């Protein structure tokens, strides 16, 4: 009988502390701790010098100023070497004029990729899929997105999630489907019958006692 050699890694989940790491990047050796106090988007791509990844890096570079305004840092990752990352970043700038302003982890030994569950063998046994981990200033994982190798990520949605999470933290509210900054937010549902009755008198726009919205 063939020996089963598959190694099982536990994947991090929303609400958990992000797995610590120390990694070689295009901006030197960085630790997760270095980002404490800032929001962080840790994202993986399959490989340098590939077409979809190149379009994504252009797009991440484009939203970087908007992310910085929101106190968010970006950190890329693939299992390529730091020399490959440097060559790719330089090539992107030479060919498109776009400078990649954020660091990229060279995860040759797949240590960080494994800790974050970025390798999905059903897609590729050697490359990371397109993961996005949104980590808050207390280093808790707040959002996880996975995209297949063939689908480039949507930067509008990533910015929208950041806006929604920061609005939730600041105002103690939730955000409805397709919410955009400036639109009404969802008031957390009441926990008791008394609160449910009071809720309807509080001047919110209520569809019913459990679904009330308000302007911020």
């Amino acid at each position, binding site marked *: 009988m063939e020996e089963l050699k598959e190694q099982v890694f536990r994947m991090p989940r929303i609400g958990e502390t992000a797995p610590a790491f120390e990694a070689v990047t295009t901006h*030197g*050796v960085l*630790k997760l701790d*270095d*980002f404490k*106090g*800032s929001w962080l988007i840790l994202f993986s791509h399959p490989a340098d010098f590939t077409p979809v990844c190149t379009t994504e890096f252009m797009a991440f570079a484009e939203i970087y100023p908007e992310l910085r305004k929101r106190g968010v*840092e970006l950190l890329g990752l693939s299992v390529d070497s730091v020399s490959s990352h440097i060559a790719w970043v330089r090539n992107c700038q030479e060919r498109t004029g776009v400078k990649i302003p954020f660091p990229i982890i060279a995860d040759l030994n797949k240590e960080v990729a494994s800790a974050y569950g970025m390798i999905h063998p059903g897609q590729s046994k050697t490359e990371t899929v397109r993961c996005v981990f949104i980590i808050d200033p207390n280093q808790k994982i707040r959002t996880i997105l996975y995209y297949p190798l063939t689908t480039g990520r949507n930067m509008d949605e990533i910015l929208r999630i950041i806006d929604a999470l920061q609005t939730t933290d600041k105002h103690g509210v939730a955000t409805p489907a397709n919410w955009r900054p400036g639109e009404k937010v969802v008031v957390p549902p009441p926990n008791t019958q008394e609160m449910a009755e009071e809720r309807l008198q509080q001047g919110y726009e209520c569809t019913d006692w459990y679904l009330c919205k308000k302007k911020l």
Partner: protein
Amino acid sequence: MACVSPDGKPTESGTKMLRALKSGLGSPEEIASHAGLPLFRVRSGLRDLTLAGLAVERLDRYEITDRGTALV
């Protein structure tokens, strides 16, 4: 090291950090604000400068060393 070249000289960002240290700033937050660098870069860079003997850490603050002073 990101802030110190293989020849022992500080890079542009390393020089900015050493200048901030020389002016008396000591916390990573102060240095990041003064040098116009992201905080994560400063935290990582201060580790590099310390390893290279160009800065020392004392009670969560950093100071420039004589070797560091000689380079900026």
